[in-house]
Every structure is written in C-alpha cells, then in structure tokens.
C-alpha cells in the first residue's frame, strides 16, 4: 500500500513538471520565480528603507543582464531618477521599475530578458500620460540616442504629473 501510494505521488509531480517545461520558456519561468522572490522581499522591507532596498534590487537585476543591455538599463535608470528624483526604484517582474505612491509608474525591459528584438520602456496606469481617448503607454527602444534619451526624460516628467 505504501509503495503504491508513493509511486502515484512521485509520478504526478514529475508529469506536471515535464509538461510545464514544454509550455514555458526558461526566460518565462525565471521571470515568474523572480517576481515571486521580489514580492516576498518587498513585503519584508521596513518603512523608510524602500529606496535603499529597491536600489539594491534594481542594481542586481541590471547586473544579471549581458552587455550591451546592462549599460542601456543602467543609463535608463540614471535618466529616470534624474527626471523624477522622488521615484522609488523597485523591480517589476524581475526588470527595473520605478514607483510612485506605492505603485509602479514605469519599467524597463531589456531586450535580452525575453530574447526580444528591442528593449521596452513602458508605463502603467499610475502614469499621467493621458491624451484624449488613445495614447501610447509602452515603447520599443532600439538603442539610446540623445533623441531617445530626451523622449524618455519627457515621458517620465509627464508621467509623474
């Protein structure tokens, strides 16, 4: 009886794990795990220590990136913080993000993160980019030129309102 039940128990999880491996890419599974980790860590941060903890978390997520993504992410972090110093760094699904009033305002997803052909700089509903009945909230970034940097700065300034 004991043998039988052990057999059933060991078969089920491995079957489920195998099919999960087929359905999700390594990058996707990593992102889910990182997100779980970042949320548990954020829940443990003491009031007043959010900025330092977030800065550490963001730096760690940037350090994991290959070049040239790492340099691009670091530069975007500088641009965002220079445009709106009140923002608090906080990782967002394992990518650098910046929050306002406890909610993520914008994020930077490096190209290498999901093996995409471009980086993405995106904003969330907390951002005040509203313009009529339809407005852009996320952008593909091929690389950082002075024009692109100026546009990111402008977006962040407008987003904080």
């Amino acid at each position: 009886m004991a043998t039988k039940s052990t057999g059933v128990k060991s078969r089920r999880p491995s079957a489920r794990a195998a099919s999960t491996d087929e359905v999700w890419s390594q990058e996707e599974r990593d992102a889910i795990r990182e997100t779980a980790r970042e949320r548990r860590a954020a829940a443990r941060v003491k009031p007043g220590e959010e900025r330092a903890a977030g800065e550490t978390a963001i730096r760690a997520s940037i350090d994991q990136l290959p070049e040239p993504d790492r340099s691009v992410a670091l530069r975007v972090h500088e641009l965002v913080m220079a445009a709106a110093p009140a923002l608090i760094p906080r990782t967002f699904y394992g990518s650098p993000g910046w929050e306002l009033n406890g909610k993520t305002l914008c994020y930077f997803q490096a190209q290498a993160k999901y093996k995409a052909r471009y980086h993405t700089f995106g904003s969330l509903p907390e951002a005040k980019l509203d313009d009529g009945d339809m407005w852009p909230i996320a952008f593909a970034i091929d690389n950082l030129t002075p024009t692109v940097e100026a546009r990111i700065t402008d977006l962040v300034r407008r987003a904080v309102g």
Partner: protein
Amino acid sequence: MPTRTASDNVFTKEERAAVQAAARERRAAAGRSPEEEREAGLADLKAALAKMPPDDRAMGERIHEIVSTAVPSLMPKTYYGMPAYAMPGKDGKTICFYKAKSKFKVRYSTFGFQPDAKLDDGKMWPTEFAVIELTPDVERRLAALVKQAAG
C-alpha cells in the same frame, strides 16, 4: 509570524488566471491542424469576449471587427486569455492583443503589439496604447496600426 511561501500569496487571482490561460492555449494550439486553427482560435476569442463585463466586451467586439476588416488574413486567437491576432501560417506569431481594463482591474484598456509587428520607426516607437473609448478617430488609428503591423 505568518509564513509566505505559497505562490498563491504572491500572485493575484488575475495573474494566476492569465498564466493558467496561457498554458492551456499553448497546449491546445500544439494539437491543432492548420485548418482547425482559425475556427478554434475564433471560438477561443469569442469565449474570452463573453467573459468580459459589458463595456469591455463591446469594445472587444468592435476591435475584432476593426482588426478583421483591416487585415482579414490575421488569425484570431487568445493570448494569456486575451483576444489576440497572429500572422497566418504555421507558428504564426501573435502580433497584437486587446487587454480589457477589467483583466487586471485598471483604469484603461490596452491595445498592444508584439515584436513581430512591423511598427518600427527610427530608434523608438510606440508598441502599446491605452484606449479609453473607440471614437471614429481611435478606430482609424487602430486600423492603420494593425495594417502597418501586419506589413
């Protein structure tokens, strides 16, 4: 002190539903023939619309008309449980999706494009849009974007 280890505590109900929907979609798509693909994809899309609150459903239905009219060859499907459209052909990649505001309980709906969309414009270009209301102008902009995206 409470222990927070279960992923149930970390992810919201909406996030878990989206991930589960995507897993189902990928498994289902793997078993379909190209002929079944369009029909099954359309059925999935309609089922996703049927689950939405009335205002989101109305917007989704109208977006379906706009996209289908703009580029009839696009394949309807769902993507993380959202209405979406893929390039035709085997392994055609999703190029755009409609994320109703009720999906993650936010203040606007989103129409977004994936990397296979051909919207490239210089070094930086918009890939996702907040949509409040489908005015004639918004409808024209969406149709133009979808046409451009499908190249």
